[in-house]
């Protein structure tokens, strides 16, 4: 616990039943990232996620029931705002986001409000196919257009926010499907936040299994399209005050 001496940076790690990987991910972040506090938001886990995270040196917030990544992240951003952090970065508990890349993503905040750490485009092992790929291309295209900068990996959860973006997120961070990636980003951009993309190295997950079922991919396509359309028709939102 680092109560008292407060670093300026908060690493927010949403975790739902990630006891396999959360401990090592927290330790890696503390070892390889710039000085920061690690906040694990335990999203109603039924395993030892909270205990393991705390033992690894993270501060832990336990949500009383599962609220999804969106709910967990909004809690993290609220915490960051309430405790006076200057910047926050989301890092997944499954180890997919390389803690050695945190520094690089945070550095992007020097000339933007939101930085998305995206997969290198030429890495073949992250190849996605079919509906999922089309969805990513369309989402990337539309978001690039409205943000005025090239974005290729808009569903990446490896993203950093400065204080302005944190306030924006606390005001609008829907718990709906893809609300944590597409919707919050679209509204943040429309509300005047500047976004950049920083290419980073991603790793395979340490725990959990990704789904590649074609039906699920098709459902993903429809839902992400809907999320995008809804986000685009939303009004600007004004960030909450300090």
């Amino acid at each position, binding site marked *: *616990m680092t*109560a008292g001496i407060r670093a300026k940076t908060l690493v927010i790690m949403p975790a739902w039943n990630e006891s396999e990987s959360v401990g090592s991910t927290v330790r890696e972040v503390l070892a390889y990232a710039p000085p920061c506090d690690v906040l694990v*938001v335990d999203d109603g886990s039924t395993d030892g996620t909270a205990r393991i995270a705390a033992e690894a040196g993270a*501060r*832990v*917030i*336990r*949500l*009383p*029931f599962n*609220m999804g990544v969106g*709910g967990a992240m*909004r*809690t993290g951003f*609220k*915490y960051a705002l*309430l405790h006076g952090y200057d910047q926050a970065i989301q890092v997944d508990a499954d180890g997919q986001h390389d803690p050695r890349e945190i520094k690089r993503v945070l550095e992007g905040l020097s000339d933007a409000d939101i930085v998305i750490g995206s997969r290198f485009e030429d890495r073949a092992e992250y190849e996605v196919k079919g509906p999922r790929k089309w969805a990513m291309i369309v989402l990337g295209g539309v978001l690039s257009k409205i943000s005025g900068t090239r974005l290729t990996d808009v569903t990446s959860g490896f993203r950093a926010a400065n204080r302005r973006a944190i306030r924006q997120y606390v005001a609008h961070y829907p*718990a709906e499907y893809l609300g944590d990636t597409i919707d919050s980003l679209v509204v943040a951009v429309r509300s005047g936040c500047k976004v950049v993309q920083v290419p980073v190295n991603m790793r395979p997950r340490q725990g959990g299994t990704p789904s590649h079922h074609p039906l699920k991919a098709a459902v993903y396509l429809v839902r992400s399209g809907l999320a995008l359309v809804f986000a685009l028709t939303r009004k600007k939102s004004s960030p909450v005050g300090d």
Partner: protein
Amino acid sequence: MTVLAVLFVVAVLIFVIEMLRREKIREKYAVLWIVIGLATLILAVFPDLLIWAAHVVGVQIPSNLLFAIALILLMGVTLHLSREVSASEDEIRALAEEVAILRADLRDIQDQLPKDPESRPIR
């Protein structure tokens, strides 16, 4: 038949008003049911109204008009409920977030308190 219908509607109305009185149902939900109940009561007392209305709207069988109105009203009620449930869910989520943050902060403060168990608040 008319007497039975009137009795039924009156019973429903009394039930709704009684729930309202006992604060088992909020006014904003009760109002809808009371309005529907009163409309049904009027129709039960004056069945000719329905026949006249069906003629005016151009529905051949009056009971079909009744079914259509009932469907539209029930749809309205369920939509209203979905909306209210969603709003309640948002409020619950916001509260859960606040509580979780407060609990973490409370734990931090407790950790700074003297270790003497007698003087510590309940964990």
